[in-house]
């Protein structure tokens, strides 16, 4: 999901086969893929497969962790104790999802610290949606409805990814994710149905700001996406960007009606012929700007993560120091 724009390896990473044995191993690997079999951690796999998965899984993990920040901003300001409880549990889940994904990536031969280092030095990406600010409480509900909604749409196909540790992590994530979207929608419904005029205006304003960035979560149009035939075969990416985006628009158009909010697109209209909603053009310049590091919050988000990591260094070191002391004491005893 968070990886639609990021899961393609640069051409120079695809090394030519070297030996007959390599060719045989690769042929066997491809046969298993064609068979629909799962690949496990210790199985032989082409370098390109391994690298692509490390990149995709780790960037997915980074997205979960950075994604804790926009909603985390409102934990201390949640308007009721029930909403505070729900938001804490949701943001906590996102930490857990990042953790499952780092663990899955580690089975491919990288380490969590190495992956975090790539994130903190700007080498690894995370989903650009999290570079937008949360300016009101209604943003929290809208993130649950639209951002988690988009994530779920992208995530379900990944439960059938050929790399089994990733698929298993995705099964776990999807099971936990179901309340994330529901709680957001519920929050908006209460405000739109029973809230004050000020609250309704707050919700509409949040929708106006998050709608287009949510559509961008599905990545560039298929026509502009580099060839991802390989990713499709490997089960890393099973449905096209445009197909998922259309599915999302259709679902949200109906949900918006239930809420009584307007989606900020004058060209959004049901098309009988296509049996889908037509919608207006996406500002891909904005997308490129934000992905390229020039969105509203890019620098802040990364700086926050780097600070948390650096501030925690003494804690992590102390824990290891204590463990080492304990080990020596046990040996001496």
């Amino acid at each position, binding site marked *: 999901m968070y990886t639609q724009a990021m899961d393609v390896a640069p051409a120079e990473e695809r090394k030519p086969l070297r030996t007959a044995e390599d060719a045989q191993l690769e042929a066997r690997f491809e046969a298993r893929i064609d068979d629909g079999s799962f690949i496990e951690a210790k199985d032989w796999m082409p370098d390109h497969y391994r690298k692509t998965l490390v990149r995709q899984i780790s960037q997915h993990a980074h997205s979960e962790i950075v994604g804790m*920040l926009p909603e*985390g901003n409102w934990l201390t300001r949640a308007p009721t104790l029930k909403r505070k409880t729900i938001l*804490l549990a949701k943001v906590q889940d996102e930490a857990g999802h990042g953790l499952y994904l780092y663990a899955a990536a580690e089975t491919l031969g990288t380490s969590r610290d190495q992956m975090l280092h790539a994130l903190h030095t700007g080498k690894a990406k995370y989903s650009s949606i999290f570079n937008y600010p949360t300016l009101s409480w209604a943003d929290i509900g809208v993130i649950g409805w639209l951002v988690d909604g988009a994530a779920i749409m992208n995530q379900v196909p990944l439960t059938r990814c050929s790399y089994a540790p990733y698929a298993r992590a995705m099964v776990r994530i999807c099971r936990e994710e179901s309340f994330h979207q529901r709680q957001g929608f519920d929050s908006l419904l209460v405000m739109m149905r029973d809230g004050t005029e000020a609250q309704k205006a707050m919700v509409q304003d949040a929708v106006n700001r998050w709608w287009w960035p949510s559509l961008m979560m599905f990545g560039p149009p298929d026509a502009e996406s580099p060839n991802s035939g390989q990713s499709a075969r490997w089960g890393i990416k099973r449905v096209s960007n445009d197909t998922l985006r259309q599915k999302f628009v259709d679902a949200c158009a109906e949900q918006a009606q239930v809420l009584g909010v307007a989606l900020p697109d004058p060209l959004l209209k049901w098309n009988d012929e296509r049996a889908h909603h037509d919608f207006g053009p996406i500002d891909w310049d904005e997308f490129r700007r934000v992905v390229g590091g020039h969105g509203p919050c890019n620098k802040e988000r990364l700086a926050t993560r780097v600070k948390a990591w650096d501030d925690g260094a003494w804690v992590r070191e*102390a824990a290891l120091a204590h463990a080492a*002391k304990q080990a020596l004491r046990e040996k001496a005893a």
Partner: protein
Amino acid sequence: MTATSAAPAAPATTSESIRLNATPRVQYVLRIADTCLIHAQRLAEWCGHGPVLEEDIALTNMALDLLGQARALLTHAGQLDGHGFSEDQLAFLRDEGEFYNLTLVELPLRKPSGHLPGGDFADTVLRNFLLASWLKGLWTQLVSSTDAELAAIAGQALKESRYHQQHNGDWVVRLGDGSAESAARMRAALERAWPYTKEMFTSDAVDDVAAAGGLGPARSALREDWQQDVAEVLLYAELPPLADTPFVSTGTLGRHSEHMGFILAEMQVLQRTHPGGRW
């Protein structure tokens, strides 16, 4: 007569505070409720900023436990009080002078507050441990409260506080007996927190009413077990015990530190800004 468009109505004022005038019984319950609530509020600051992902999750679990305890106690206090205030009215519309938490939980944790810089992870695990040890002692007694609802809450909460005590006690040891830096930070954290622990065991008229009525123990009754638990962990953590000073904090009397105003301003802002709002 021609219809004239009315001038837009002036916005409703921000939500006024509710007034409690708590009886001793209600104040006794609110002391525990508010301590749990404010500590949970501080712990929530760590979500997304923990030193390690796994511990980030652990801190949030403790916040959720305490928030649950606070909600149950606030709801009960609202019933005991007779005005019928809800948990949310009590949390979001009380003025500072009617909050009765221990001052200890107001002190900065991760974020700076007022003129003080933020605390660190050592402050956090130490406070978690000192508080959990206190609550454990309290819940252990409250299980036999003459107030059935309070006893029921205590039964569940006791399990939670026992886990918090173990998890955070282990961290105090790990950091106290870890690296030179962690030991120095833990010593500093202990020095900051210690003067505020006296309030945990200073009884007053409210405690006397509670003890006399079988509602719950006076705070002074909790000292011995707490000191034993804490001394054991401080020993393993290679931290020297600190002497008591004449200072006693007064949060339980409704007189707070400078940090409380900032906490409430942040926590209560939406309810104050949207009178009649539905969430």
